[in-house]
């Protein structure tokens, strides 16, 4: 029975070495020939290339700074403040902060700066933008009014079809208040046609 593997172990290994530039001249010729003529070799090459790439994309981690003479946290402090450290870095940074006064001082300064920036008020838009913004507000207001009016109409209709007789005192059901409140809000836009409330 023929070998069911798409490429031989040897070709597969040479493809892996090719990715690292670790082939002899003869091997390189062999690999190039395989890649030019063999679809299975190309598929295997892609597979190995993927595996190599994903390992290479793993981040390089920071070493414990207390082990470096004069080492300090630097940019890790901002990442620490923002909760952006990778899990493996957390104990290193915490431990270092516990023993290094310089880094604690710098962290406090960074925290103050960060708080100050975050507390900055919103800025008024330039005048030439004002009409467009007003225009947009107006359109948004109209849309809201139409939505409220539609809602009010629906509420009114719902009450209109609810029988209020049967010994119930209509006064105890604050339909009127409810209705007037909705109508008042809806009147900012196009008012809905009056609906008789409470009529049987």
């Amino acid at each position: 029975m023929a070998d069911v593997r798409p490429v031989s172990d040897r070709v597969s290994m040479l493809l892996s070495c090719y990715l690292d530039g670790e082939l002899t001249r003869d091997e390189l010729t062999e690999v190039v020939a395989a890649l030019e003529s063999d679809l299975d070799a190309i598929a295997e090459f892609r597979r190995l290339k993927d595996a190599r790439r994903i390992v290479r994309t793993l981040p390089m981690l920071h070493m414990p700074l207390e082990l470096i003479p004069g080492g300090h946290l630097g940019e890790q402090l901002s990442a620490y403040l923002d909760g952006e450290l990778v899990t493996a870095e957390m104990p290193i940074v915490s431990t270092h902060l516990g023993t290094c006064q310089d880094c604690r001082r710098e962290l406090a300064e960074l925290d103050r700066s960060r708080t100050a920036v975050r507390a900055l008020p919103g800025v008024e838009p330039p005048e030439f933008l004002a009409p467009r913004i007003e225009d947009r507000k107006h359109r948004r207001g109209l849309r809201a009014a139409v939505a409220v009016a539609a809602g009010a109409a629906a509420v009114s209709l719902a009450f209109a079809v609810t029988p209020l007789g049967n010994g119930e005192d209509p006064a105890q059901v604050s339909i009127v208040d409810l209705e007037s409140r909705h109508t008042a809000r809806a009147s900012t836009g196009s008012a809905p046609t009056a609906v008789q409330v409470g009529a049987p």
Partner: protein
Amino acid sequence: MADNPTLTWEDVAQRYGRKIYTFAYRLTGNPDDAADLVQEVLLRVRKGLSSYTPGSFDGWLWRITRNAFLDGVRKKKRRPTQPLPEGDSFAVGASPSPDEVLASVRLSDDVQSALLKLPYDFREAVVLCDVVGLTYDEIAVATDVPVGTVRSRIHRGRSMLRGLLTWPM
């Protein structure tokens, strides 16, 4: 770098510390073990620099690193009563292989998890090549095996990794 006779251990710490730490973390998935390794390697470098003869500095350094790492694994095995990080449960028994010891370390993400499933020799070769960035010759010196073995280990490690990672890449 590195065949510079005036190199101090502080230089090594500054230039290689991060790589040594990452090497250990990728092999174990454990930040405490990685920190211990950095400390141990720097001690050995400090002692060994005076007797270092110019050659492949990377090969020399990574051989020290690798040996320190394996010694640490064995030492940890001999002291099973020492508290271990949460999630770790090192087996107690005679002469465990690094694979057995490392089989249960904490996993952090899919790739790290897949790396930890590789047999130790394959994992080490892949990490030295693709994380640390050594050449095959340097890996051969560091791990004390012929270059042909390095080639084979890296290839088999990558093949297994691709099979372990089922998500599309």
